[in-house]
């Protein structure tokens, strides 16, 4: 059967794009809050204010003339990431993992010169990577040292945890692992693997690629059943705090795990996708309804996490 009966999806509490847009995004995300999440520089500012851990900003470049000072800016820095503040879909991100004199190296080992970096920044500023081509700001961030626990599950890229947070309550989580097919990107519709994560334990539930269930990573061959997300107990309150930080009632936050610093918020999304339901083999609706109708109004992220742990574990 190519199509399923809508009643079956309804029974399982699957929400579709229309319901997400009408009943959640339009109702809970005020338009004026969008810049907070759409511009990563502002997101960082807000995160600082709310004591939320983020990758450290080295500095930002807004004007073309500042590019001349690049040698000074990068003196003594060997590892960093350059990204556009308003980039969409992971575009325009340059990762430097090593440096020898004036030569920099990408994770793949490719050499990058000072001039290459300068041209890349110039492109970012002129809006090459930003949505709609607006002029943009380039950000220099400290490189995240990824926790080695994820190494078997990712190919040419970095896995991150996507958490849906509704009115401050974490309701569903998945791990996104890049594959050869997804070209190192963590977007599910481009072929990345989505691994549903039990909210209570941080252990994997299912893994799907292109909407189909899989057992092993297609490139590395590691079984997903062994997967346990580290620092899970820290990830939950961190994501819950994004509610206070952005003021958005329905959001998706992307979390990376640093070997030394632990969980960090990479970015917040005001229009999180619905593929998370496929990865969890579970609809969002019942959990969202539960929060809407029964969850106590709490200002403490920890209290909300308690509630989520109790009500949204996989065995319930």
């Amino acid at each position, binding site marked *: *059967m*190519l*199509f*399923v*009966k*809508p009643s*079956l*999806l*309804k029974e*399982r509490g*699957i929400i*579709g*794009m*229309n*319901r997400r*847009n*009408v*009943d959640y995004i339009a109702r809970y995300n005020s338009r004026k809050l969008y810049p907070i999440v759409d511009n990563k520089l502002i997101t960082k500012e807000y995160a600082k204010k709310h004591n939320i851990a983020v990758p450290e900003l080295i500095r930002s470049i807004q004007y073309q003339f500042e590019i001349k000072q690049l040698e000074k800016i990068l003196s003594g820095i060997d590892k960093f990431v350059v990204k556009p503040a308003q980039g*969409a*879909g992971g*575009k325009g991100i340059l990762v430097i993992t090593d440096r020898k004199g004036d030569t920099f190296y990408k994770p793949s080992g490719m050499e990058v010169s000072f001039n290459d970096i300068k*041209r890349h920044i*110039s*492109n970012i500023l*002129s*809006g*090459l990577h930003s949505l*709609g*081509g607006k002029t943009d700001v380039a950000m220099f961030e400290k490189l995240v040292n990824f926790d080695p626990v994820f190494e078997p599950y990712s190919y040419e890229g970095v896995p991150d945890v996507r958490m849906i947070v509704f009115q401050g309550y974490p309701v569903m989580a998945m791990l996104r692992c890049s594959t050869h097919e997804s070209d190192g990107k963590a977007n599910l519709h*481009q072929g990345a693997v989505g691994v549903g994560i039990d909210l209570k334990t941080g252990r994997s539930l299912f893994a*799907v690629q292109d*909407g*189909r*269930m899989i057992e092993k990573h297609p490139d590395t061959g590691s079984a997903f059943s062994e997967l346990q997300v580290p620092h899970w107990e820290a990830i939950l309150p961190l994501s819950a705090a994004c509610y206070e930080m952005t003021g958005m009632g329905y959001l998706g936050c992307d979390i990376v795990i640093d070997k030394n610093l632990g969980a960090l918020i990479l970015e917040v999304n005001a229009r999180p996708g619905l593929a998370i*339901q*496929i990865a969890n*083999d*579970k*609809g969002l609706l019942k959990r969202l309804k539960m929060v809407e109708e029964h969850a106590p109004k709490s200002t403490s992220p920890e209290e909300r996490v308690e509630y989520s742990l109790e009500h949204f574990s996989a065995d319930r």
Partner: protein
Amino acid sequence: MSSRSQVYLLAFMFFALGIGLTLYKNQSLGFPLLPGQSEEVWTVESKVTFEATDEPITVSMILPQDGSNMTVLAESFSAPKYGFRVKEENGQRRAVWTKRSDQGPQTIYYKLDVVKNGESPSLAPPIQHQASSITLTSEQESRGRSFLEEIKASSADNLSFTLELVKQLKILKEDNNRGVTTEFKKKSVTELALILLRMEGIPSRTVRGISLEDGRRKQKAIDLIEIYDDEQWTIINPKNGKEGTPDDVFIWQRGGISLLDVEGGVKSKVRFATIENNQPAKTVALDKSNVEQSAFIDFSIYSLPTESQSAFKRILLVPIGALVVVLLRIIIGIKTSGTFMPILIALAFIDTTPLAGLAIFLSIVSVGLWIRGYLSRMNLLLVARISAVVIIVIGLMGFMSVISYKLGMTQALTVTFFPMIILAWTIERMSIIWEEDGPKEVMMQGGGSLFVALLAYVAMTNPIIEHITFNFPEMLLVILAITLVVGQYNGYRLTELYRFRDLAKDK
């Protein structure tokens, strides 16, 4: 009130208003709901002829009046070298032609277009004292009385009395051996019946009508009898003894005043010719509302100059395209590049025909994408980049037109109907999608856009839809209502039933 119920209330109001106005225009003003409907329009030509006797001439003829069973759409008077005016007299319109003097045969024409109005007019009750124009001898009167007594005995009320009267008079007239006077023979059934009805005290009058027969010429006006009974006038046709307004008769005049008066002429007569022609029902409705001066039409698109009207014809199709886009995106879930790009492409398809349009569109966009790929390596700023693409698109359009013209393919000349800014933006968007999401996504969105555009084209060129959007712009409200309701739809899209197909499986 929640926003949802507000939307439904508003949508309901728009819907009811739109449907209501449409029905009003259809039912009361006669605008046809379907294209190609036509209505019978009768052209009646009355020809007045007489011999002038070298004296001042005054010709006056009664004109059709309110309360007729037909509406006059247009009338024209033609009598060269005659002075002409229309005068109102006791609520009757009379045309008056005048001339100092002339000799010999004279002809005056009065032509009018009429259409059935199907109305039952409210007619004024009879004036109480109607002076009899004919004085009867005592013998005539007594014979009349006894005749009336006979009929009275075999009738129940005024109507059946009159019907019986007409029937008996006809028998009398046909039978020559009954010893009737020549005076009796000279008079028509109608005239006799009216005299006798007056004697009986039943309010009655003559009704003059024109028999509507296609191509009939030189016919006389026919006389009908109308009696007042039960507070309403009823027409009786003396020819067949039937009551009610005959279907094929154009009621010209009510009451006993003369049809034609000629001073300064002899042997005057008036003859009628009738021709039937079919006219588009819409034209008739518009003419009618012109006559009746309907404010609703006066402030409609029809009051615009024809040129603007045809521009609106196209503009009013855009909501249909928008509705198609809304339904396909929200209910079906088809991805398109740019929300309303498909409508603009569909509009271009109307001019180019879809097949030629598709070919032109695909060739320009693919060449444009190829050039845009090179432009992106030059790291241009967005505005400059788009402008460059616009210029290139224009160049491509010109190149395409010239080459295809030289090759004898005039179809490609319609390339100019594609909005070039839209083409440029499509190229820009597609190339960004290509870079960010790969060629598969370009095919998905580009194909989706073209599919939606084709569907919108089919909807917009449907003759019935075209007819309704232009003739009933009120339907915009209905489309608005549907759009509002669909905007609240939070159910699944058809594509999601495929996307989430594994989730419905029992584990």
